[in-house]
């Protein structure tokens, strides 16, 4: 009967679509789009920001279809491990722990770590002067915690904030003596407003900053990583890369 045949065809197509290689499956990229200008949602509801544009540029470079979805940071690694996404498109620090557990892309940019204080603070004593005060940073970012402990002392009172904006609110309120983060964010987002300044020159020592920032994949994604790396190399060699950086951050990215 007509109906049975249609149903059979539909079932057949559906089953076939679950077989590998049936269609060119898109690369599922998860990005936490909740912080302008890295990745955010614009007024039309579309994903925007540097990380989003870079991902799209790389996909275009390798002629792959990409599905970029907005995944909250707290659920992003769970999504990666449970195979809901293939890649974390938020640029994260390539720590040794992460390299052991996941596959990583080539380094997209390198950052320096620094302490930020309000413009009016006396910084004549440098980082030594921060001892004894609570220091704020982004919650859970172990490379930052290590840096603070290394610079200020093992007993430092480290306060972990959910976002840079929250930390800076507390800096203004006087609950923390300084906010520690990467110079890229500090410079571009806060210091450029003139209300804040660095305590000392940002520290690029790879003992703290690891192998720079990149993208993360499940272990064993060799084929995918190779393709993405090629795309990244291609895009990073073109002027569009630093143009995107200038557009979103007003600064060039350091890749070495």
């Amino acid at each position, binding site marked *: 009967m007509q109906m049975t045949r249609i149903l059979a065809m539909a079932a057949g197509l559906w089953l076939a679509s679950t077989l590998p290689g049936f269609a060119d499956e898109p690369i599922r990229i998860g990005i936490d789009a909740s912080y302008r200008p890295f990745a955010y949602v614009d007024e039309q509801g579309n994903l925007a920001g540097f990380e989003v544009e870079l991902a799209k540029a790389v996909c275009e470079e390798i002629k792959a279809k990409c599905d970029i979805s907005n995944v909250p940071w*707290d659920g992003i*690694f*769970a999504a990666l*491990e449970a195979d809901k996404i293939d890649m974390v498109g938020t640029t994260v620090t390539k720590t040794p*722990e*992460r390299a052991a*557990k*996941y596959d990583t892309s080539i380094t997209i940019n390198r950052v320096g770590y620094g302490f930020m204080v309000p413009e009016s603070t006396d910084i004549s004593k440098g980082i030594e002067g921060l001892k004894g005060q609570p220091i*704020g940073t982004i*919650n*859970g970012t*172990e490379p930052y915690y290590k840096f603070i402990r290394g610079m200020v002392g093992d007993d430092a009172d480290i*306060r*972990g*904030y*959910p976002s840079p904006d*929250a930390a800076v*609110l*507390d800096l*203004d*309120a*006087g*609950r923390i003596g300084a906010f520690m983060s990467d110079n890229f964010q500090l410079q571009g987002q806060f210091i450029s407003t003139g209300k804040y300044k660095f305590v000392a020159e940002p520290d690029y020592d790879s003992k703290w900053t690891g192998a720079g920032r990149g993208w993360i994949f499940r272990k064993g994604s060799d084929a995918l990583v190779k393709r993405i790396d090629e795309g990244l190399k291609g895009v990073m060699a073109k002027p569009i890369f630093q143009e995107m950086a200038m557009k979103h951050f007003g600064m060039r990215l350091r890749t070495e």
Partner: protein
Amino acid sequence: MPDILFQDKLWSAVFSGLVVTLALTVFSMILGLALGTIVAVARVHGGRWLSLAAGAYVFVLRGVPLLILLFLFYYGLPRIPLLRGTWFWDLVLVSPFRTALFVLALNNSAYLAEIIRGGLLGVQRGLVEAGRAVGMSSFLIFKRVEAPIALRAILGNLGNETIAVMKASAITSVITVHDLMGGPTVVGNLYLDPFTPLLVVGVFYLALVAVIDFGVGRAQSWLKVSAGPMPSG
């Protein structure tokens, strides 16, 4: 065996977080019960304006999520220059833990006020009228009739609320307070294991809930709450 289980960091986060959770739960329940009872009585027995004010209190403090209450209190209030020099700043706001406790207590008191109000309203009219018929004053009726019945009816509910507060305290990480849920999940981030810390923490929560349930059960048998009204079958 996931190797995060062998990391000191995880267990120190679990135990320091446990202390924070217990402290926040116990103190906000005590403060919440005190405040909540006042508000509940105001709503049930108070005059028009009093019960309206109490109603507004309950509405705002239950309606706005704890996350937002915490955020606005902790990050928002310091921007009001007037508050900076006051005792409120020194006593509460300057400390993330104390601010968390304060806001949790307020939020909790609103939920408790509703639970207590439900208990008071559930007392059958006939019993209250009987009390009035034998000449009891309103206060005596409250003390001898309403309160005991209400208390028995809501014990399980109070247990629910305690459990809810215990779990809700996880949100205080947004103002840098790390409890049983917040601390270990940060360690999970570090060791890139989002699932194992949740399981470990889950076991602890189950144990705490068992303790609370046990406590409620003991309270119920001590107050001689009946075993159930059901017809057989």
